[in-house]
Each structure stands twice: as C-alpha cells, then as structure tokens.
C-alpha cells in the first residue's frame, strides 16, 4: 500500500493550493494595527491579549472540527494541560528562558495528551466523539481541581505576567498561518475527505486514524500553548478558567465563523471575546446578553442553510 506523505504539497494543482491571503490579511492586519496602537494601554492590552488567545484556539479547533469534522467539545482540557505545567515551570524559574521553557512544556503536555487520548477516542464518530470529548474536558478540570499538587480549587498564583498583546499576536499569526498551510497540504485534503465521508475516504486509502490524530494533536497543542499564555496573562490559573463553557466558547467561534475557513473562526473568536468582555459594563446582564448573542448569531447565520428534507 502506498503510504501517503502527509506534509507534501503537490506543485501541480495551481491556484487551488496557494494560500489565498485576502481575508486573512485584512483580519490579521487590523489586529496588528490594534496591537500597535493599544499595546501600552493597560486595560485594552489585556482585552487584546484575551482576544488573540481565543482566536488562536479557534484557529486550532477549526482545523480539527471544521476541516476534519472532529468536533471536540473538550478544548478547555487542553488549555488546562497547557496552563498548569507551564505555570509549574514558570513559578520555579521566572526568567525569560524559564517562561519559554514553560510555554514549550505546556504545548508538549497538550500534544502528548492529545495523542494518548486521541488514539482511542478518535475511533468514535459523530456524536459519540463529542460526548467523549465532553468527558475528557470535565475529567481534566476535576483532576486539576482536586489535586493538591496543582493547587486544588484555589489554583496556582504568582506566575510571572509576561503575556502582552504583541506576544499573543505573534502566536496568533503563527497559528493561523500554520493551520492555513496545513489545510493546503495533503493532510488538509485528507481531513476534508474524511469530514465529508469517512468510509469513502478510508476506502480511498486515507489513513483515517492517523489523520484524525494529527488534526486533534495540532489543535490540542495550539490550545495548550494558548493556555500557557493565559497563565501568564493574569498571573494565576484556576480550574474555574477551564470549564465546559470555555470549551463551548471556542466551539461557538468556530461554528459562527464558518467551519473550515481558518480565518472565519479567528474573526468570530475576536468578535465574541471582545463582546464578552465589553458586555461587562452591563453588569449582571452580561451573561444573559452573551447567551442571547449566541442564540441570535446561530439562528441568523444558519437559518437558511442546511439540507432540505
């Protein structure tokens, strides 16, 4: 059997395989302008950092959920798996080298867990996979909540606050371009194939489990890196940051932004995160409005689409 090289980019298919940077450039360019303008404003820079991290996770999840069709409702788990190890490392060496090591540790932890958990779980399809990922998300959160080594329900405090908008922006750009590149390689092609019809893809020789695992690992690693950066944003991590709602926030960004186009979820995540934060001025109405926003956006976007019975 011919083993396909997942990362090869055939040169013969012309336009279709070039990365079209139109929308991407607009969104990332606008983000750059915002970053440059507000980097030193304390409140806005925190908001921008959060937005970019959410967008980064949305890009990663889109590769897995949008392009490959593997809906993972447990991305909060990967955030936690990135944040906690990173926090442990950064607490012990609060130097720039230590911070870099922390981010790497977090990302590695996310990748490893995605691989180990993904292998058995990705054999499931459709709703069962989503259910399993919900289980993973909750398990991870409860694990960190009840573990005294990781600070229990109080979490870990005192992490060096190194995250600034420019750093997050760089990570966002890297993740987005990486995911866009991945979509254009053979891996992306196989992901699209198996999201359309897994059995047909399998019968054409697509190594289904390997492709799914690769997509899952990539999205897990990106989420974990974002988690590590989150740790540096507020200086503390607590299990409350990684609830099911957080996972759903990212999924909402993917769904509302247009699954499959990496930049759509990025833009949607930027918007949703900004909306979530800006709604804070409404005090107790904030979450109600956010919920209404989700419902309305979903209805407006998808009302006319879908299969006609």
């Amino acid at each position, binding site marked *: 059997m011919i083993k396909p090289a997942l990362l090869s980019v055939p040169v013969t298919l012309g336009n279709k395989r070039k990365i079209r940077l139109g929308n991407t450039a607009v969104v990332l360019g606008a983000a750059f302008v915002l970053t440059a303008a507000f980097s030193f404003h304390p409140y806005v820079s925190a908001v921008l950092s959060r937005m970019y991290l959410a967008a980064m996770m949305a890009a990663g999840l889109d590769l897995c959920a949008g392009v490959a069709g593997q809906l993972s409702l447990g991305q909060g788990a990967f955030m936690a798996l990135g944040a906690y190890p990173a926090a442990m490392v950064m607490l012990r060496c609060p130097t720039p080298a230590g911070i870099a090591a922390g981010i790497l540790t977090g990302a590695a932890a996310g990748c490893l867990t995605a691989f180990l958990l993904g292998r058995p779980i990705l054999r499931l399809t459709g*709703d069962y996979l989503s259910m399993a990922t919900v289980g993973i998300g909750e398990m991870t959160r409860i694990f960190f909540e009840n573990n005294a080594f990781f600070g229990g329900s109080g979490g870990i405090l005192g992490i060096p606050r190194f995250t600034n908008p420019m750093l997050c922006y760089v990570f966002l750009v890297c993740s987005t371009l990486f995911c866009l590149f991945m979509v254009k390689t053979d891996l992306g092609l196989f992901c699209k194939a198996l999201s359309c019809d897994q059995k047909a893809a399998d019968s054409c020789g697509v190594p289904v489990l390997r492709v799914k695992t690769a997509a899952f690992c990539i999205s897990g690693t990106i989420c974990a890196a974002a988690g590590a950066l989150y740790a540096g944003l507020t200086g503390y991590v607590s299990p409350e940051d990684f609830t099911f709602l957080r996972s759903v926030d990212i999924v909402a960004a993917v769904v509302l932004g247009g699954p499959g186009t990496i930049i759509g979820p990025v833009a949607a995540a930027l918007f949703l995160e900004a909306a979530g934060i800006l709604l804070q001025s409404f005090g107790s*109405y904030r979450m109600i409005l956010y919920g209404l926003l989700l*419902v309305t956006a*979903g209805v407006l976007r998808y009302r006319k689409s879908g299969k006609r019975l």
Partner: protein
Amino acid sequence: MQQIINALASGAVYALMALGYTMVFGVLRLINFAHCDVMMAGALAGYLCHGFFHLNAVFSILISMAFCGILGVLIEKIAYRPLRHAPSVSALIAAVGVSLVLQYGTMLLFGAEPKAYPKDFIGGVVQVGTGVLPLAKVTALALSVLMMAALQAFLKCSRRGRAMRAVACEPYAAKLCGVKEDGVISSAFFIGSALAGAAGVVYGAMYSISPLMGTAPGLKAFAAAVIGGIGSIPGAVLGGLVLGLAEALASEYISTAFKDCLSFAFLILVLLVRPGGIMDTGAGTDRT
C-alpha cells in the same frame, strides 16, 4: 444496603434528567445543553410553590413539571426550531446560549445565594430493611421508576407516542406517513422538560437550590444517558442508576475527591467499549 439505596437515589435524579436528554436526542439528534437549567428552573418553581403558595410536595412537583414542560416547549420554539435544518452544531451553540440566559436570568431575578427547601417539604424518613433513609431519596427513586414505566407505556400505546418513535427512527418516512413533526418534537420537549422539573424539585429537596446548580448534575445525567444508550428510554434510567452506583463504588473504594473524575472516565470507557451504551439503539451513529 443503605449505601446502595443512597447511590440509587442520586442515580435516580440522573435518570430523570437523562430521560429528557435521551428523548430530545431521539427525535432531534440534538444534545440539549439547556436541559440542566430547565431542571434548575423546576427546582426554583417547586421552591416558590411551597414557599409562597404553601402547596404541599405533590402539588409543587406537579406544578413545577407543568411549568418546566411549557418552558421546554418555548425554548424549542424560539431557539431550536429555526435551526432544525441547519448543521446540528449550530443548535448546540444555541442550546448553550439558552443555558446562559436561563442561569443568569435566574441569578438576576432571584439572587445568587443558595436556597434550601424547608425541612418539612419532603421530610421525614422511611424504614427500609435495617436502615433509615430520607424520604426525599426514596421519592426520587420511586419517581424515576414510575416515570419510566409511564413513558414506556406512552411510547408503546398512545398515538402520539408511536409518532414520536417513528420520528426518532426515521423522520422523513414518518412525515410521509402523515406525522406532524412539529407536534411530536414539542411533545418530546414537554415531557423531557417536565421530567427535568421533577428531578429539579427532588434534587433541590435533597441538596439546595442555586442558579448554577444544574450544570454538574446535568453533565452527569448526560453521561448517564450516554452510558445507558442515548435514544433509549429504559437506557436512560439504567444509565442513571448504573452511574449512581459506579459513583458510589468509586467514592467508596478509590477516592471521594476524584469520584466525579471517575464518573467521566467511566463514560469514556463505555464509549470506547460499546458506544451505543447499554441499550444500543444505534441512534448516535447516523453522522460519520
């Protein structure tokens, strides 16, 4: 023996809610994440019935069930019906949106502090064998078995019930046979949400009521529905009881702190070994 009944009682609450999840999944292939907040609304409704209108337990439960049923139908009409022909992820997001609105709306209207049912609500104890159990827990158990039996009878014998099974099995063919999809789906939501209301009242009587109380038992109930076989009514009850037992065993023999973690590990184990759950109906395998 007492431990077992305790475990079964908490499992019974999961079972009642799991029935709602399973019914909605059966007809719509949608995981209704707002279901747990309907349960919370039910708990609150029961609390108000008892506290302000001074109704006794039976009436409180009945009124709470009716209220939740109507709430469920409203939610379906507003948030899910426009998305019925859209990719189901969008309905998932809408469900979460509804969940947020319910949780924080309740927080706004009734405040965030936990409330407790007064002791005389479903108070008192019952002699079971050698042990003594709170009546609330026995009620939970009895209710869920009763509801399951009633639901099975409804689905097998009544016209609307048969229509519901038809839609769950094959919606297009059901439409060709003259089944009105809208009515059936509304009925499914009404019944499921009413059961959640009952679950809420009983859960509130066992523990306490707060706006965010639904999330934790909700996810467990969802796990229970999956373990028992999503789409199957007896499966939901079985799954709830099995999960309750598994939790009790885990907390007894492995660790109390990690019992929630182990519940979800159990869920994943079941999914890996037998994704259809105990009563595999094949409901979750349509989309690849």
